[in-house]
């Protein structure tokens, strides 16, 4: 059968960059069409702060451009902060060490699952506040937004947190 068309999905939209407070907010897919090279030029006072909560996807071409962007920022002497890093990007930070550059990750999303009701959520972890736990590969406890039970970390901590160990 030929697949029926579904409504145009937002999940693979072209990446957008918007100024939000002290950070640049990236949304959509980081792929061959993403204009990552613009980012270092938009740094402020030697700081490049990227809010990555709305990044939905990154492919190998996006990874290549991401690494180039990090190298360019490093060459320009910029301090790069990655904030609210979405799960797809965390997976790449874990798989490809070069994607980390010299950036500091201050917060990131991580998968949790409720043992009681089975709900799965991607929840934000403050990497600064929980630094001691994270270095011990001990995920911070989270509460299920649906049934208020304790949620369990839904990945292998040694794998998921490896990007924090540099």
């Amino acid at each position, binding site marked *: 059968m030929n697949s029926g068309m*579904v*409504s145009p999905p937002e999940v693979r939209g072209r990446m957008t960059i918007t100024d939000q407070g002290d950070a640049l907010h990236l949304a959509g897919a980081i*792929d*061959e*069409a993403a204009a990552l090279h613009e980012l270092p030029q938009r740094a402020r006072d030697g700081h490049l702060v990227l809010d990555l909560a709305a990044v939905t996807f990154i492919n190998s071409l996006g990874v290549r451009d991401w690494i180039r962007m990090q190298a360019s920022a490093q060459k320009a002497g910029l301090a790069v902060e990655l904030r609210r890093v979405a799960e797809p990007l965390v997976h790449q930070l874990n798989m490809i060490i070069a994607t980390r550059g010299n950036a500091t990750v201050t917060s990131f999303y991580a998968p949790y699952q409720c043992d009681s009701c089975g709900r*799965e959520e991607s929840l934000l972890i403050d990497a600064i506040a929980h630094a001691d736990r994270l270095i011990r590969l001990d995920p911070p406890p989270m509460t299920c937004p649906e049934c208020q039970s304790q949620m369990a970390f*839904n990945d*292998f901590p040694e794998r998921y947190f490896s990007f924090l160990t540099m």
Partner: protein
Amino acid sequence: MSVPSILIVHSDRKTQRTVQRILGVTGYRVDVADDLDLAIRLLQNSRPVLVVFDGSLASPATLIEAARANGTEACMTLLGPASADRIPAILGLGAITNLLVHQMPILAEELVITAQKLIRHDLFGVEKYLLWGTDLHTTTLTRGSQRGELVAQLAAQVGSLGQSARISSMAMLAADELLSNAVHNAPRDAAGVHYRKELPRELELPLDERHQVRLRWGCDARYLAIEVTDSFGSLDRDTILSALATNNVRDSGGGAGMGIALAYRSCDHLVFNLAPGVRTEIIALIDVRHPPAERVPASSYNVFVERSS
């Protein structure tokens, strides 16, 4: 000498029995060796269609060499999740065309499918990995820029089947890399030049019949299976094994083969069906039964090459 057979080389008696029982259903004679010495002796008097061996075997290269010299078509390594750190060494051999990583004893269905494909010389089709009755969705890529749309549609449809965002995300990455590979890396001219490899991926690229790429996918509540086929058949075994072995995907900035390496790491099982000069079919299988923390922390692969008749 002429009796068709399968050889199992494993030191663990329980695994031997399990694998013997599973592969016995093929109707082939199944020989079992506890160690390398016995395996080599058995190979002197037989030509197994498949040699299945323990991934923690001390000298796999010796066994592989003996099997190949004897005309054995395929070698398969079995690995438990606890031995997943052996994968780079196994891939580094550049000769293991089949690796199954599973909780031991091995998952029967994947072992049987692999053996049957080799025995029957019937390699192609994602149907072999899905339960009867599974709907397969088919789309043909007719222009390069369609890749993004198709991948997004796939993710939306997978989500609408009730699969998690994590599964959709894995499906997107695998499909995107395989489609990109089929559109840009597969086309090769008579001189062996991959003439679309260096074209910017964002370039609009109409695909005539020869260059069109087929995407099929389906989900049977065990696996989400994504199949991508091109009609060049230019991908070869050594290129694949080298790409899979790109362990420095962790260390480097990418480059050639990175797409295949990422596709491999974004699914649970990657299957390459190769008909040289005719077509390449790659199937990514994503296990949808288990949450991430209960999954096997490494991926299996198979490389099958169609015999020239």
